[in-house]
């Protein structure tokens, strides 16, 4: 199998997923959603999970987030076993999930407060939240409520909330899926900048091939469910900073793109072939 195509002797491992499987009990017996998931994510690495809908990529991300517990296998975050959700993983939800009764600043503060309030005073916490909002270019809307800003802005605040906790890892579940194409492109570019400045380790779920190739160091391609697993891992060796316009004609980029499309539409377009 091509799982772990790049065996790591590196000590900079941030996340290790070993033999993880997920079985959901249903009325018609157990449903195997994921099996034999083995994956390592290095510090500062940007990994995307891609696959057809229903392949369990979001399930895998939720497992790492601790929102669900795996049926088998173990997961380590910086050599410590994951047993549940925690602020060491910043989660960016697809629908932003900002609390509508709190201002942008208060939404971020809620997260900051949870992580740093033991050692820092009110002013420092506020400083952190403002810095996070500044990082995503939302300083102008600090006092606004989520319903007063656009979808793209909400997602920025969601990213700020996750980053402000200084998590070991950023988990993003199709963060730009609900945005229009132009907004999505702009946010992708900004995400690349933010990741470059913060050195964040990112695991992101997407179903957008271009997004995956543009952003990733590695693309984890998943087979179709049920009993989905990692089919292939594609290393994307494009130099950074990556510029969208220039990449469109880059031969490597086109090649990587083709490989993902081949995987998704030629080899794993049907469940029968994947099994």
């Amino acid at each position: 199998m091509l799982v772990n195509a790049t065996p790591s002797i590196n000590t900079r491992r941030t996340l290790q997923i070993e033999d993880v499987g997920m079985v959901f009990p249903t009325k018609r017996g157990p449903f195997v959603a994921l099996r034999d998931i083995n994956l390592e994510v290095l510090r500062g690495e940007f990994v995307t999970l891609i696959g057809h809908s229903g392949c369990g990529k979001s399930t895998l991300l939720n497992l790492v987030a601790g929102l669900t517990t795996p049926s088998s296998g173990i997961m380590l975050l910086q050599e410590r076993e994951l047993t549940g959700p925690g602020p060491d993983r910043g989660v960016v939800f697809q629908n932003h999930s900002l609390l509508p009764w709190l201002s942008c600043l208060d939404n971020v503060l809620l997260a900051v407060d949870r992580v740093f309030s033991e050692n820092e005073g009110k002013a420092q916490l506020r400083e952190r939240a403002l810095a996070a909002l500044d990082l995503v270019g939302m300083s102008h809307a600090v006092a606004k409520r989520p319903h007063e800003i656009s979808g793209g802005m909400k997602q920025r605040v969601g990213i700020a909330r996750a980053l402000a906790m200084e998590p070991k890892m950023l988990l993003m579940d199709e963060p730009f899926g609900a945005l229009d194409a132009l907004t999505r492109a702009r946010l992708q570019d900004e995400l690349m900048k933010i990741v470059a400045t913060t050195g964040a380790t990112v695991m992101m779920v997407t179903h957008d091939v271009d997004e995956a190739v543009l952003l990733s160091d590695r693309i984890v391609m998943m087979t179709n469910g049920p009993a989905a697993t990692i089919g292939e891992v594609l290393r994307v060796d494009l130099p950074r900073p990556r510029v969208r316009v220039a990449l469109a004609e880059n031969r490597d980029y086109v090649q990587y793109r083709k490989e993902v499309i081949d995987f998704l539409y030629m080899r794993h377009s049907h469940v029968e072939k994947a099994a």
Partner: protein
Amino acid sequence: MGRALLDTPRDVAPPADTAPVRRVSVVAVDPAAKPAPAPREPFDWRGLGARVLPPLGGVALLIAVWALATQKSASFPTPLATFDAAVKLFSDPFYSNGPNDQGIGWNILFSLQRVGLGFGLAALVGIPLGFIIGRFTLFNRMLSPLISVLKPVSPLAWLPIGLLVFKSANPAAIWTIFICSIWPMVINTAVGVQKVPEDYLNVARVLKLSEWKIATRILLPSVMPYMLTGVRLSVGTAWLVIVAAEMLTGGVGIGFWVWDEWNNLNVAHIIIAIFVIGAVGLLLEWSLLAVARRFDYS
């Protein structure tokens, strides 16, 4: 079973049947209905007329039918006679000639006090109870059947229990208000808690917020609109119940007053009381709607 109970649409949805009535009265009474227009735009007389004239027409129609029907009746007062009685009644609303003869103002205030007490206690018990039922399936399953059985019981059936336990009329009336107005708050709060979006709870989980923070920052604001609908329904119920309860328990209060005037065969006063009770109920509803609007985050 619990779900079936908690999804009873009558209690959950804001009462649609009162909406048109409310609209009509807002236009007729609320001075905000004729706001100062922008200086250059001509005043929209037609729009104002279209909103003000129909409600006035409705009232005029009622009075006309009433006047026609009572033309030859000796026992039922005409609109004019009722109006005269009302003018006399409201000219001195706060007189007091002993416990059985007090002004209509006092009667209303005493009733409001009972409603306030009974309803306040019901809120104090019902809202936390709703939170518990909504958050913990065990309690939901335990209490839902009981609520289903007790909810449809008429207020008057509770009164003897109150009289027995409290040995006095006034606490018994308050108890009746309490037990009848508690259910909408319990049920709506519970439904609100169950409908807190999963996303918000996931945020709480990934941030590992404390139970206190979850309650104050996520559950409470999220449940607030449901809770306030429950409160509104409860106040409405309480105001309905008070008249019946006071008729039986006596004392000073609008319900007792209606019964007293019936014994005096003063039908004009009964009609006035009906309008007064309606108006007070409407005011209660408005004030709670105003509160609810402040907590609407959508």
